[in-house]
């Protein structure tokens, strides 16, 4: 089963070198234990563009689809047998990147 592990940021900004180092250690562990699927850090929401091509022509809108104080700063996709394992890993991920985290199952 795969879970999306989202990193929620508010005003903290980009990761510090210490946080980056801790994330690397955590990523190595995910890979070693077979939980790793994919991960990535994202640019700031101000760099986002929303596209809507459901109508006659594609509409491009500057900015994120949802304006909020908290935003998605990055994510992991992990493989875990059940939510208990996913939550244990996510708790370590939160410690490593020093941010709040949301765990959500893939359908």
């Amino acid at each position, binding site marked *: *089963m795969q879970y999306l592990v989202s990193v929620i940021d508010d005003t903290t900004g980009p990761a510090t070198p210490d946080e980056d180092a801790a994330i690397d250690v955590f990523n190595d562990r995910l890979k070693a234990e077979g939980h790793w699927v994919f991960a990535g850090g994202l640019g700031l929401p101000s760099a986002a563009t929303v596209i809507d091509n459901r109508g006659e022509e594609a509409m491009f809108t500057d900015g994120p689809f949802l304006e909020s104080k908290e935003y998605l700063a990055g994510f992991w996709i992990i493989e875990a*047998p*059940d*939510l*208990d394992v996913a*939550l*244990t890993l996510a708790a370590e991920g939160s410690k490593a990147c020093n941010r709040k985290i949301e*765990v*959500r*199952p893939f*359908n």
Partner: protein
Amino acid sequence: MSDVEEAITRVHREQWARVVASLTRRFGDLDIAEEAAAEAFATAIERWPADGVPANPGAWLTTTANHKAIDRIRRENKRDDKHKEAQLVYDDDPPEPLGAIDDERLRLIFICCHPALAMETRAALTLRMVGGLTMPEIAHAFLVQESAMGRRITRAKAKIKAARIPYRVPSAADLPARVSGVLAVLFLVFNEGYLATGPDTDPVRHDLTAEAIRLTRLIRALLPEDGEVAGLLALMLLIEARRTARVSASGELVPLAEQDRGAWDAALVAEGHRLVRERLAAAAAGVAPGRYQILAAINAVHTSARAVGDTDWSQVVALYDQLIRLDPSPIIALNRAIAVAELDGPDVALAAVDRLEDTLAGYHAYQVTRADLLRRLGRGQESRAAYDKAIELTGNTAEIAYLTRRRDELG
């Protein structure tokens, strides 16, 4: 009630959790397990009055529920990988030995009290799946509309399935935290019964306190070595023992100091004291007690005093000191101050209570305590103001009646 009706009620109480647990294991789906168990009991209500109660009612119900579940799965054609064909064969073998099934009930409790679910949802789900309460009963317990409670439970079951919350006893490393989560759910249910809130609600909801005690006894039987389980059970028993003495004939709250101690339930007190003694022995052997064990010990000091004047207040204060080291919360500091008033006088207690104003001014027990201390110190006007605030903040009808009388007696 006829003998058969009584038998069905008893079997429901004793077997519901077992039937739901064994079906959840077999079909890996709480929703199917719950519905099939409910249908099996409905069939029993239909058939037993004519056919008689079967020799092994639990086995009869499990078999009937299994058939209902398989019928539903076939109807919905849900033969995906999770429901192997072999599992869909009617299996009328006798149920597994008791030990394994008891373990299943523990899994059921842990899945209902999973930390990924909201606290109120955990309580509702536990009452439904483990306690066997109906949706209207649970909705009434939490004073919400039946439809809202139904949606909450449906959402919870959907999340358990979609997020794959596992059906198992947590690992040894997680167990203490998870047991403590289960106990918090049971204490929430108990407290809602003990201090029921709402203008149209009985001041003490015996159905909820009794259910919380029954479920805690079950966990005690499943986890006999856990000190906090014993502590919570003792705490509930010692509070429950005072239930009838706690509300007067006219529906007014009777505080501990004014209760008729002869009206306390001696059997419950004795059972609670036995558990507290068991935990004291463990503490003497070096096992540090948790918060429920200390709270139970405080209650045991009260229930050991034949008259309020015999209460060993220095022991109560010492136990609160121990509790504050574990949990330095303002509410515990408030309760400690109430005991300090008896030991060192209301002026000393009031000074301690006033230090809690910033955090507790909106908490009714804070205002009740202040009102009482000010009254004892002869500061009538301030006491009246505190009673007014307390009445405003209280949702319990018996407590409102008591506080109103106390305020009006100030003169």
